[in-house]
Every structure is written in C-alpha cells, then in structure tokens.
C-alpha cells in the first residue's frame, strides 16, 4: 500500500448524497480477479452514454477535473455493497482522498486498506470545500494527514479527526495482516481457551 502523508491536488465536486458503491463501480466490472485497471470504469454509468461516449457534463469528464486527486461529496458516501472494487476504482483513477459529511462503514474501512484517506467534516465545512472545488483546476487543496488539516486554495484551514491507528498505518503504508500476525500468540491462546469453552465452534 502506498503511503499517504500530504497531498496537494485538484478536488472534484460531486454534490450528491447517498453515492453508493454500485454508482462508483457497477456490477459488470466486478468480474475481474485483479485489483487494478478499474479507474476507467469509475462512475461508469454517470460517465459514459449507451454508446460508450463520455458524457461531457459529468464532473470527472470535464477538462479541469480529469486529473482530480480529491473528491468532495455529500452524506453517506459509499453506501451499499461491500465491494472493495469501489476504492480500487477511485485509486486507479487517481483519487487518494474523499471528503464528505459522512461515510458508510464498510467503504470507510476499505479506503484505509488501499491508501485512500476518507475525511468526514460538518456540512458547513463541506459546503465551503465544495465551493472551493468548483473553482476548477487552478484551485488546489492540500490535505496534510500528519497535521490533520485541509487547506483550501484561499488558505482557509480545516482540521479533521482520524483514528490514530489508521493514521499510523496510512502514513507508513503498513500491511494490517503483518501487524496482526505479530500477535499470533494472543490469537493462538484465544483459540486454545475457546477449544475448552466453546468446542462446538
């Protein structure tokens, strides 16, 4: 997993609530057995018409946002299916940070496993960031995970919360499984106890 420390980039505004993972990556692209290559199908049904032509009005098709690295959106982002193909598609497109008023639980977890930083902020702050994002490619935001701040193109600074363990893993690009395997002794001892207490499991 790539480290996430500090990111300065274009933010794309997507002022919708309940952006679900079916929207992020429709089911026909879940048939892959790889994690890569999904960026071209990110938001597929919103991005392309029936003849596979780009729909010019969709934000990520606009020249200013084709290289966006940040996405600003509304309530309950990433709801629905647990498909990790959603963050894989975001990452493959080049998006490393999603800012929204709230996130669905499974999607939120999945982001951290893939080097993407999801940031939840109050509505008033997201409104300001949404306006900033609407300014286009000359307006770049900076997301600093170490300082836990977002700086708008105007220099306005917002702070955000993130779980310290997740922040640590993201900043160092750490593999969860490796960390958990360091606790193998605790897992084995738990299993030994369970073997006597709940042998039917």
């Amino acid at each position, binding site marked *: 997993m790539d480290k996430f420390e500090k990111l300065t980039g274009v933010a794309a505004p997507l002022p919708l609530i309940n952006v679900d993972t079916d929207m992020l990556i429709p089911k026909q692209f879940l048939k892959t057995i790889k994690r890569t290559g999904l960026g071209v199908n990110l938001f597929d049904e919103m991005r392309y018409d029936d003849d596979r032509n780009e729909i010019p009005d969709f934000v990520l098709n606009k020249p200013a946002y084709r290289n966006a690295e940040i996405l600003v959106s509304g309530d309950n982002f990433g709801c629905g299916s647990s498909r990790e193909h959603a963050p894989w598609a975001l990452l493959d497109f080049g998006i490393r940070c999603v800012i929204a008023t709230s996130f669905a639980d499974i999607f939120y977890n999945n982001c951290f496993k893939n080097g993407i930083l999801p940031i939840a902020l109050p509505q008033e702050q997201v409104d300001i960031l949404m306006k900033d994002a609407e300014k286009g490619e000359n307006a770049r935001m900076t997301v600093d995970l170490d300082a836990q701040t977002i700086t708008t193109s105007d220099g306005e600074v917002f702070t955000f919360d993130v779980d310290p363990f997740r922040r640590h893993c993201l900043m160092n690009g750490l593999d969860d499984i490796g960390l958990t395997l360091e*606790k193998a002794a605790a897992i084995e001892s738990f299993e030994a106890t369970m073997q006597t207490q709940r042998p039917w499991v």
Partner: protein
Amino acid sequence: MTAPKTLYDKIWDAHLAHEAEDGTCLLYIDRHLVHEVTSPQAFEGLRMAGRTVHAPDKTIAVPDHNVPTTLDRVNGISNPESRIQVEALDKNAKDFGINYYPVDDVRQGIVHIVGPEQGWTLPGMTVVCGDSHTATHGAFGALAHGIGTSEVEHVLATQTLIQKKSKNMKVEITGKLRPGVTAKDITLAVIGETGTAGGTGYVIEYCGEAIRDLSMEGRMTVCNMAIEGGARAGLIAPDEKTFEYVKGRPHAPKGAQWEAALAWWKTLYTDEGAHFDKVLTIRGEDIAPVVTWGTSPEDVLPISGTVPAPEDFTGGKVEAAKRSLEYMGLTPGMPLTDIKIDTVFIGSCTNGRIEDLRAAAAILKGKKIKDGMRAMVVPGSGLVRAQAEEEGLAQIFIDAGFEWRLAGCSMCLAMNPDQLQPGERCAATSNRNFEGRQGRGGRTHLLSPAMAAAAAITGHLTDVREVM
C-alpha cells in the same frame, strides 16, 4: 456484579482476542463465508505473501453472484469472465482446503441462505463475509457483518479482524402486525424511519413482540437489510425458535456439545437496564405493506401513498429526490398503485427462503400473471428449490406463468444473465433499488414476496390486502 450488557456487548466480549493500548481490538471470527466475487484478490494476496488459510474448517465457500439460474447452466457458464471467477473459487477452495458447495451441488445457493441452512451459522458466533448482506446471520443472535476484500484476506490469514466497537441501537417493534404485513415491510419501514445512514456506527438489536413472533426466515429478512440502514450489523436474541431451527442441521453441535452450546446460547440476551445509545420504537400495527418509489432504500412509502415531490424534502435530499424521480420516470402526486410493472423478481438473500415462496404462492394459487409480464422465482438455495417442489409451490408458480429457476443471486444485482433492460420496471423482493442495480436504466421497486406476487397478477403496484 458486572454492569448490564447488551447482546452485542456479550458477543463482542466473548470474541475479543486482543486489545491494544489505543483501544484497537482483534475480534476472533468463528465463521468466514466466501463467494466468488470478493475473494479472488484475497486468495491471490495470500499466495503472493506465502500465507495459508488459518482456519480452513471455519471457512465456507459457495459461488452465487455470477451463476446463471437457468436450467442450462449444467452446460457451464457462457460468460467467460463469470466462468473464470467461479473457476477461481473452485481452485481456491481446493488449494486451501476450505468447505465448498460447487455450482452442481444441490446445497449450492446464496451464501447467506446456505450458511444457516447447513448449520454453519449458530447463536453467539461472529460471522463475516465479503458481502454487505452478511447482516442476515444476525437473526440467530450472531454478530455478522460484511467486509471488504482486504479484510477477507486478513480473516483468511489470521481468523481475526481489526475492529473498533460500534455503539448499541435498539429497534423495538411492539405489538402485532396487521394481515398482509411481513418481515420485509418491517425492515423497509425501519429504514424509512432511520434513513440509510441512521444506523451508521451502530449495531442494531431488533426486539419487541412483532420481532419475536417472526419465524427464523422472517428474522433473517429483517436483519438482512440492517446494512441498508447503515448499521454495522443487525441482531435478534436467540430463543426457542432459533434453537429449534438450528437443531439437527448438518454442522450444528450434537449430543453433549449441543447441551453445552444450548446452555451458553440461553445467556445471549440483553440484560435488564443495559444501555442503548439510540432507541427507535415502532408500533407493529402502524406498519402497512410498503414499497419503495425512488433509488435509495430509504424511499419507502405505504402502498396507499402517492409519489412525493422534491419539495417534500429538505437539504441534499431535494436534489436526490429530483434525480430519483427522473431516473424512475415518476410524477409527484401519482398514486403508487398506478405504477405499472413489467417484471417481477422473487428471490435474493432478503426473500429467497421457503417462507417467502410460500407467501408468494399463497397469493398466486389458481391465478395467472398479467399478459406480457416477465416474472421469475429464484429460490435461495438448491434445497429451498427442492422443498418448494415437494410442497407443490413450484407448480403454483409455473401454472401462474412464472419462470422457475435454479438458485443464485440472480436479478438482485444482475452480475449474471438475469438483468433489466433500460426503462424496464421491476417489482423486486431484493434489497437495493440503486440506479442501475438490476441493469443499466432498470427501475426497481422493493417490496415483500406477497406484494410482488400481487403486482405480477395485476400488472401494477398493488396492495396485497386487496387480492388476499
């Protein structure tokens, strides 16, 4: 004397394998269910790191999302990508020695139907699967939730998950349900109240007389859609109905172990005075048969209602409603019963169990579906299908004009040949009405199996109480 605990607290405490100083917990996982769509990258990750499956005996795999449900599937899956994904699961199950129900096994079906049916899901367990509808297993008083593929790999390698504890939410449905009102109406009505993010950060315990009165099948339907309300999991305390359902299943404990298990299971309830961070109470008699009108499961209305207008809402929901109405091709003020349907889908992990098929068949018996209607029943497992045939339900469906299919996820998510065409409108017993969910441009109205059967007969959304 320890502080009173909720059911969730008890299951959580019983599975805590490690807690770090910063509060990060390792939760031990008793059952890991696996399907073909969200697992190939996880197995590939294991191989690349030279790791093995930590507890293959606690890992159960079954292909369900991609498999065709037509009788000709014995000839193989024609879509090459789908076929590769199912073949990858065949191989991974074999290579890593995990429990497996291949496509041609009569026990194959939707993973959330197969788990309980085979007795893999037991009260007090932790159950995970790379699928958001894992919440279904909460009906047994098991802590069950969906995970992403990275977490699938983590569970395969360590049999644990890194977790933070959620908050406790209680949803109580008091009193009795009225005739024609089912578990599906309960779960949709709850989401209508909470919204799709109302449960975010919580584990919901469903309780109250109307919940206790439900069969295990009905309880699974309720818990199944906990995720649609944003909750990490949904739970129902186990009782005699639960124990009766579990007893004698292939992987349920037997003999002395059964007695020991039962003794522990009977301690799995929320203690008097335990703290809930959020409480929602709904009177059972206030719940009507409901349908969804929009593209979010929170867009729920009683069938007697009318299509809302964007200005009936506030905040971001105004734009969302505008977008939904346009996508769904509906006009504000129109009675919901005027909405014409061309497709009916009965099945899915929400409503693909025997009781669901019985409820639909009871409405359809001796009747015909509307001319031109495309209607299909997709049993949740091969065993549900066999039982429905034995009970004569299959014949009722066939006589009414339904297609009688083999088990799989089918049109719930349309990763297989069962899909809607643009503009087609479906009455579906599944769980999501998202844009494009059942096929690009397809329009989905969620409802109960009995309501779906009623719509199949009349050709429009219908109050099931009028055809009972």
